[in-house]
């Protein structure tokens, strides 16, 4: 169920301050944030955030399309390690041959 409109979007307050500061400085540096739960607001567009995924800060450069999504959506917390299919087949045939 979506969030009530009267509450407004959820954002951790300190992000606004951080974003403002980053806007002030001309250098485009990565703002490290832990707040994956915060909504991406229009005033964040154009900035680059380092969103923490529990391990690293993944760079997310915010574009207009991302408004309304949460920061966490852009920094996956799980990585799927697959066996490379081709390699495995080669191994298998070699194994049965010997």
């Amino acid at each position, binding site marked *: 169920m979506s969030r009530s409109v009267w509450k407004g979007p959820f954002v951790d307050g300190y992000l606004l301050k951080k974003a403002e500061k980053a806007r002030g400085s001309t250098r485009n540096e990565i703002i490290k944030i832990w707040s994956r739960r915060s909504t991406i607001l229009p005033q964040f567009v154009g900035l680059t955030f380092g969103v923490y995924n529990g391990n690293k800060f993944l760079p997310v450069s915010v574009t207009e*399309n991302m408004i309304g999504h949460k920061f966490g959506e852009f920094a*996956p917390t799980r990585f799927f390690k697959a066996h490379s299919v081709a390699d*495995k087949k080669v191994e*298998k045939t070699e194994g049965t041959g010997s």
Partner: protein
Amino acid sequence: MARIAGVNIPAAKPLHIALRYIYGIGPTNALEICERVGVTATKRVNQLTESEVLRIREDIDKNYKVEGDLRREVAMNIKRLMDLGCYRGLRHRKGLPVRGQRTHTNARTRKGKAKPIAGKKIATKK
């Protein structure tokens, strides 16, 4: 037989059922249309007059996004998610469930027919 909203030719069924053959019109919308146009919902399609068919067609054109347009909109929404690089987009790209369902078992609708794991049978035999 009546041709409404492009290619759809609903059969000799009651109107509110026949309208549901159009992509984008379900039970609720079908009844809404019947009411707005002023045709009894249970009237058979082959008993509709020309003007009734015309009014239905206009009503759908005016109030609903159906068939190709709707399909395109849905596809565009999905494409947007995929291009964005967000979690939902990644799930669409991989063809896995998007809304947090389990994938350990089930999820066959999204994943398709079960694929055998290469070499598993041999391993169990040994």
